[in-house]
C-alpha cells in the first residue's frame, strides 16, 4: 500500500479529491450488487459523511476500504428483504430506427428478459460481471474491490455470462 504524505484526510481539498476518485465507482458497485431501490448514491454520500466525521481517526490509505465497508454495511442493513431491481436506460444506446418492427419487438423482449435474468444472478456474480463489462475494470481491480482472488473474479464473470446466455438463448432461436 502506498504510504501517504498526510496523516489524515481532514482537509476539504484532499477530501474532495477522494470523493471524485471513489464516489461514483462505489455507487456503481452498490447499484450492481443491490439494485436501485435503496438509493446507492445516497448511501455513498452517507459513507462519505461518516468518513468526514471520523477523518482524524482514519489514515488516508485506509480511507478507501473504510468507505467501501461502511457503504456496503449501510446497504446490507437496508437490504434484508428487498428484491434487487436494476433498471435499464430508456435511452437506446444504438439507433434502431432502420430496423424492422420484428427486430424492435425482439429487442424489447430481449431487454425485458435481460433485466430479469440480471436480477436473478447472485449478487456477487452480477457485481463482478457488470464491473468488468460495464465499468471496464480489470480482473485485478475487481478482485481488490470485492475482496476475492483474480481467479474467483474471472470465474464469477464467466458464470454470470453463461447464466445470462442460457436465459436469452431461447429467444435467439426463435
Amino acid at each position: 500500500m502506498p504510504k501517504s504524505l498526510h496523516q489524515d484526510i481532514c482537509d476539504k481539498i484532499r477530501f474532495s479529491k477522494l470523493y471524485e476518485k471513489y464516489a461514483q465507482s462505489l455507487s456503481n458497485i452498490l447499484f450492481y450488487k443491490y439494485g436501485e431501490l435503496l438509493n446507492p448514491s445516497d448511501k455513498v454520500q452517507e459513507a462519505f459523511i461518516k468518513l468526514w466525521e471520523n477523518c482524524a481517526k482514519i489514515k488516508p490509505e485506509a480511507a478507501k476500504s473504510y468507505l467501501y465497508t461502511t457503504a456496503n454495511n449501510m446497504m446490507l442493513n437496508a437490504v434484508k428483504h428487498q428484491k434487487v431491481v436494476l433498471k435499464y436506460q430508456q435511452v437506446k444506446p444504438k439507433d434502431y430506427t432502420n430496423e424492422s418492427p420484428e427486430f424492435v419487438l425482439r429487442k424489447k423482449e430481449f431487454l425485458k428478459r435481460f433485466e430479469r435474468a440480471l436480477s436473478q444472478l447472485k449478487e456477487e456474480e452480477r457485481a463482478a460481471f457488470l464491473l468488468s463489462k460495464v465499468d471496464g475494470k480489470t480482473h485485478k481491480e475487481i478482485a481488490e474491490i470485492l475482496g476475492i482472488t483474480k481467479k474467483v473474479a474471472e470465474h464469477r464473470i464467466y458464470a454470470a455470462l453463461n447464466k445470462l446466455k442460457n436465459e436469452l438463448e431461447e429467444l435467439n432461436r426463435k
Partner: protein
Amino acid sequence: MEKEYLVKKWLNNDLTDAESKAFNALEDAELYQEIIEESQRFNGNINAEVASFKTLDEKLVSKENTSIHWLKLVSGLAAVLVIGFTLFKLTNKDQINSFTTTLAQNETITLPDNSIVNLNELSELEFDSSNWDDNRLLDLKGEAFFDVEKGKRFDVTTDFGKVSVLGTEFNVLSRDSIFKVSCYEGLVQVAYNDNEVKLPAGTELVLSSGKALKSNIVVAEPYWLKEMSVFENTPFATVIKELEKQYNIKVTYPSDLKMNFTGAFVHNNLENALISISKPLKLTYAIQSTNEVIIRNE
C-alpha cells in the same frame, strides 16, 4: 473446454488474433456480444449517479455549523451552572440535603461527620449540613440503616417518634403504620408518644397500633442491606406485597391462599426469589412478561 477458455479470454479482452477468429466462429459469439452491448444500459454512472461534491460539501458544512452551535450551547450552560452554583454557595448557608429513593433502589449517603446512612427503597432522608457537628438531626420517612460516628447527639425524627444515639449502628423503619427501630451496636434511645425507651445492642422495638414490643434481633445486620427480604411467619399477602415492591412487578395469586411464610427472597434475581417463595409452600409460578407474574396452586 476449448470454448470456456476462449470465452474467458474474451471476457478479459485477452484474445490473440487467431483466437479472436476462433471465438467469432463460436455459435454463441453473437449472443455474447449482444449481452455485453446491452448490459451497458445498466451502467451505474447513469442509474446510480452520485451528486457532485458540492452537494456533499453543503451537508458537511451544516454539520460543522451545528457542532459549533453545540459547543456554544454547552459552554454557555456550563458558565451559567458555575455562576449559579457559586452564588448558591455564597448566599445559602443553610444547606438542606435531601435524598429520595424510588422502588427497588438503595442509596448510601455519607454524612459530613463520616457517619453512613443506607437508605432503603421508597424512602426520604433530609438533613441540614451547614452546622452538622453541633446539630446532627435528620428527618426520615421510610427505612434507613445508620452507622453513626462518635460525637454529639444524633437524632432521627420520624412521623412516629424520635430516635437518639451517641455513636452506634441502628436501623429505623417508619412506613405506613409500622415503626421499628433495631439497634446493632451501642445504645439507642427511642422517644414515641410520651414514652422513652433505651435499646441496647441486639434489641429492637416495634411499635404497632400504639403498642410497643421489645425483642431480640436475629439477624446481625438488616436483611435489606444484604439485598434480601426475610420473613418470619408472615401472611402470604404481605410477602407478595414486598416482592412486588422490590421487583416492581404485578403478582396474581389465588385469593383463598391463607398461608404464612417463613423464609427469605433475594432482590437481585426474580427467578430465584420466586423459587424461594413458591417451593416451600408447594406453589408454582409463571413469569408472564417483564412485570407480570402468576402464582398458582400446584
